[in-house]
């Protein structure tokens, strides 16, 4: 059996192609920043990005021209305000037009679950009283065959690649995560290819019982990447840098300042360790 343990650079090069549908999931916690930066460094284009809560890493990928479409349900900087690069793309098509496939959290969660189960669509008692179906033809309805109730229907989400960050993996590629886990398990099982970065790789994972373990046979590649979720956080390892999230509002507000920051810290850094070191220098 060939090892699934690889480097982040090789994992992105091997699995993320131009034009792919890619989900970097994470609900505030465990956001795969390092993987997003590597996609930017490798210059991927025309990605269809999927995520319930596109936050700073998607702001960066959109602003750097990686994406042409976004499936999402809430796009903001939590507790701070707008994502200025996402807004610039939607409001002014800079640096490129961005097609929106806009949903609600309940809808995306259900669509991932359907994708994970190999079903063609998800149904939910959702999208009631909202204009969203009038701007998104992928939000439809279905009549319950038993009660006749009209329910919302959304197509299953099956990303070409789902990318996650987790606390640890073992050498076979089993991945364990805990804390706020969002829709990561569903996004993992819905994916055709699953790439995971982890804080540490261990010989043996502790027994998990009801904990979340993504089994090795659905995992395509695992790369160790310490600090790989920063400025998001990893429970048990490091805290969310709320100050960075607040500073991002200024960094990303204007195009020039954004591009300069990305050049200095992401493009000029060969990997995530160098990126973190570059932030330590300016701190």
């Amino acid at each position, binding site marked *: 059996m060939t090892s699934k343990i690889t480097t982040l650079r090789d994992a992105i090069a091997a699995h993320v192609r131009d034009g792919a549908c890619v989900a970097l999931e994470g609900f*505030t916690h465990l956001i795969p920043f390092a993987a997003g930066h590597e996609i930017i460094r490798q210059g991927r284009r025309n990605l269809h990005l999927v995520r319930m809560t596109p936050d700073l890493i998607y702001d960066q990928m959109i602003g750097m021209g990686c994406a042409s479409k976004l499936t999402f349900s809430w796009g903001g900087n939590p507790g701070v305000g707008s994502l200025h690069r996402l807004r610039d793309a939607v409001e002014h098509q800079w640096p490129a037009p961005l097609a929106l496939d806009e949903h609600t959290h*309940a809808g995306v969660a259900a669509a*991932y679950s359907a994708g994970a189960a190999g079903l063609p669509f998800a149904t939910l008692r959702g999208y009631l009283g909202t204009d969203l179906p009038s701007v998104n033809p992928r939000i439809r309805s279905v009549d319950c065959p038993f009660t006749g109730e009209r329910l919302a229907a959304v197509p299953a989400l099956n990303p070409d690649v789902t990318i996650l960050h987790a606390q640890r993996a073992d050498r076979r590629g089993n991945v364990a995560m805990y804390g706020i886990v969002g829709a990561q398990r569903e996004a993992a099982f819905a994916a055709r290819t699953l790439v995971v970065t982890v804080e540490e790789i261990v010989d043996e994972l502790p027994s998990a019982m009801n904990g979340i373990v993504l089994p090795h046979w659905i995992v395509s590649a695992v790369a160790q990447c310490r600090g790989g979720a920063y400025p998001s956080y990893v429970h048990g390892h490091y805290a969310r840098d709320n100050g960075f999230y607040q500073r991002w509002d200024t960094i990303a507000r204007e195009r020039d300042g954004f591009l300069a920051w990305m050049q200095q810290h992401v493009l000029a850094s060969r990997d995530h360790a160098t990126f973190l070191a570059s932030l330590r220098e300016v701190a």
Partner: protein
Amino acid sequence: MNDWTRDEMMTVAAARQLWDGCVCFVGIGLPSAACNLARLTHAPDVVLIYESGTLETRPDVLPLSIGDGELADTAACVIPLPEVFSYLLQAGRVDVGFLGAAQVDRYGNLNSTVIGPYDAPKTRLPGAGGATEIAAHARQTFVMLKATPRSLVAQLDFRTSGGFLEGNGARARTSMRGTGPQSVITDFGVLKPHPASDELQLSALFDGTTVDEARAATGWPLKVAATVETIAPPTKIELETLRALHARTREAHRRPVRLPA
């Protein structure tokens, strides 16, 4: 001159509407402050659920985001997101949902999606998130926003979340399970729906605020309920608890985070 701010009064007025033991779906910002103030004063057993799946959480400081580690550390348990929306919300296991919005109309419908046309927005807002289904399925919702004629509007630019829809019982004819927005808490006072027409009307004013002020801050001709209550100013305990919570939060958010090595 009051010794409290309008923000503080809004937060206190919202907190007072929660009862001990109620199951409350919390949003970030003013609602988060209000819910925790209730928990720290008159409702110690209020069950706070944040969208990130943290159930019965008791944060010592207010989170910046909906999923700060503090929420998980102090929660009874943390569940995956699809369960939050299906098992809890859609299944009707939430008493109160707290919502904010950029725009609210006279029937309590909310816009948090876009200002201007959807395809050519003047301002792109974050979008629905959990709000659409919270608005539909929480047994009742409370809305918090600062009132201006640009936020309390005659016509929404986009309807993200349904309140009473077109009013006059329209909501009751849908499969929305909750009873809709029962309170809109603004910085002048509280609007509540008329029992027959569903139209939001002025039902309570903060101490020192006038009907004229409320009307000036509302973008439609605001109707006034038969009796308008005056909401008692914050008590000493409410103010001290809220200010201490904010002080702890400011200090925690200022603390530098060590970059992972």
